[in-house]
């Protein structure tokens, strides 16, 4: 695979994922080729069951493809062991899920610090980075709150902070606005777009939220596990 490491961050070739839990094979992802360049703000869209989350899971190494390969930063993640994948995700990928992102028994600061603790970042640097990212996501003053003491939008902001604080190459956001009202979702997306501009971190969303679709600069449309459309657009 000749990957242009200057620009290409994710390269997926011939991805297939077949589930056969009930004995009937179901193609969740069916022969998908995808290249994501560094700094992109991309939305993978499609109706429920179109394979968005499965594709995201395979790209991030959370799931393994039945066929096909994925390279991230030039490294073939499909060939990695479980432990290597854990370390790889820790160092290269930030995750934002639609809800229940945060560890409920940890405070805001502790949640954000968690990945840095896994990475072995020293205490002072952790504190510096946490303070900086809290400022970026507008959550200063909430350091010692537990997730249950925050609104849904605030929790997602903390989740964004946790995803970005370890300075990964890629942020994967699976339906990040699904549990938020439109105003809160809009502000969250605007914040992520600003962070994308500021840091040039790559964002990939899986969504069917019109709000997210409008803000994305590239849309990859899936249907029945296949790429229906892949287009750039002018975000609103």
């Amino acid at each position: 695979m000749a990957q242009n490491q200057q620009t290409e961050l994710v390269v997926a070739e011939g991805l297939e994922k077949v589930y056969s839990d009930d004995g009937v094979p179901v193609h969740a992802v069916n022969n998908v080729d995808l290249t994501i360049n560094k700094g992109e703000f991309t939305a993978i869209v499609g109706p429920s069951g179109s394979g968005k989350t499965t594709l995201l899971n395979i790209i991030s190494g959370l799931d393994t493809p039945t066929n096909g390969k994925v390279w991230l930063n030039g490294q073939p993640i499909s060939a990695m062991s479980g432990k290597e994948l854990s370390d790889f995700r820790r160092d290269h990928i930030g995750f934002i899920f639609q809800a229940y992102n945060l560890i409920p028994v940890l405070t805001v600061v502790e949640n954000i610090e968690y990945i840095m603790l896994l990475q072995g970042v020293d205490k002072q640097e952790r504190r510096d980075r946490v303070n900086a990212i809290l400022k970026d996501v507008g959550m200063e003053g909430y350091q010692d709150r537990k997730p249950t003491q925050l609104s849904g939008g605030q929790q997602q902001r903390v989740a964004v902070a946790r995803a970005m604080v370890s300075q990964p190459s890629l942020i994967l956001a699976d339906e990040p606005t699904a549990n938020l009202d439109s105003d809160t979702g809009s502000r969250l997306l605007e914040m992520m777009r600003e962070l994308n501009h500021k840091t040039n971190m790559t964002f990939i969303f899986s969504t069917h939220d019109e709000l997210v679709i409008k803000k994305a600069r590239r849309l990859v449309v899936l249907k029945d596990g296949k790429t229906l459309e892949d287009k750039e657009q002018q975000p609103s």
Partner: protein
Amino acid sequence: MFWLNIKLAWRNLFRNKRRSLIAGTAIGLGLASLIFVDALVIGMTDNMIHSATASFLGEGQIHDENFVDTQATEETINNLDWVVSELEKEDIVQNFTRRTSVMAMISSAANVSSINLVGVNPETEPPLSQVDEALQKGDYFKDENMRDILIGSKLAEILETELNDRVVVTVSQVETGDLSQDMFRVSGIYHFNTPEMDRGMAFIRLKKAQDMLGLGDNVHEIAINFTDNRYGRNDKLPFWDKYSKHGNLAQGWTEILPQLEAALELSQFSTFLVGVILFGVVALGIINTLFMSLYERMFEFGVLRAVGTRPASLAQLIVLEAAALAVISIVLGNIIGLIVTYITAQVGIDYTGIEFAGVTFRTLLYPELKPSQFIFYPFWVFVLTVLVGLYPAISAAKISPARALQKVL
């Protein structure tokens, strides 16, 4: 990461306070039961040993080596003067007494019965037997009357005698084998609640017995109490070898009453079995609690794995949660165990009159608290809880992050 997992485990334990409290109490009750059973068995063991040795046996005995098997009148202790003088010098001997012991016939106006007639020294006997304490009627060799005899309550019923009634005792003399008869006055009736003693024994003065039997100053038995009752159970004590010569045999109570030693071993095995059963029940409770907690937090584990937590670290978290549960349980168990055992140790448990392994409990049974009970059993509860926690921990480590994020196993 280890310290973070400790913090997480401790806080996770209090996420569902009610469930943790119930699980901790269940494990704690198991631990408290173990502490109590152990204290009870120790108390019962001491009580049984005391009942067996203090009633009449003593903690050790010296006989002619043939007397043990034959009970023959002529088999008296050899080199008695040396034995007595040496015993008087022994640091480990608290007190001892000399006795004669022969089979005899006792008859009243109404009936006749065979008995073990024991000659005792009223001055040295009381510390080694409880005949004086077991008297229901009469006195314990109060006057210098050589014709006093103490009989058991059952024997009194058989003979249809009351206090101060006369009975006739017939024995066989040592040298000639001639029968020797003498009349005695029932000066006391005792009740041990032990058929063997209440029905089959009678006590007269040592001097009178020696005269009747023609033994001179010889005796059949020396009963001994030690300064520490553990000496009687120590068959490696040099004491036994020292006095098991010149044709004599010195034995501790474990040899004299092997059935009691066997019963005590059985009690200890019972404690072990109770422990195994309790630990088994506790183990299933822990597994259930941890798996319930694991299933409830499946999505959370998926998030943890997604952000880079290694499977081993997740397993460590579950094991630490089990350890945290163990700590709570141990605190609860030790408190409950201490309170219950302390109260029963103060009040006592009434098993008096109940016979077990040939020994009748004569006093209240007091469980005995030992510091080791609050270290040994909690240690094993902790180890077991952590070991049992490995099962859900390994299951958690094997979770596929993608599936966990779908909340599907």
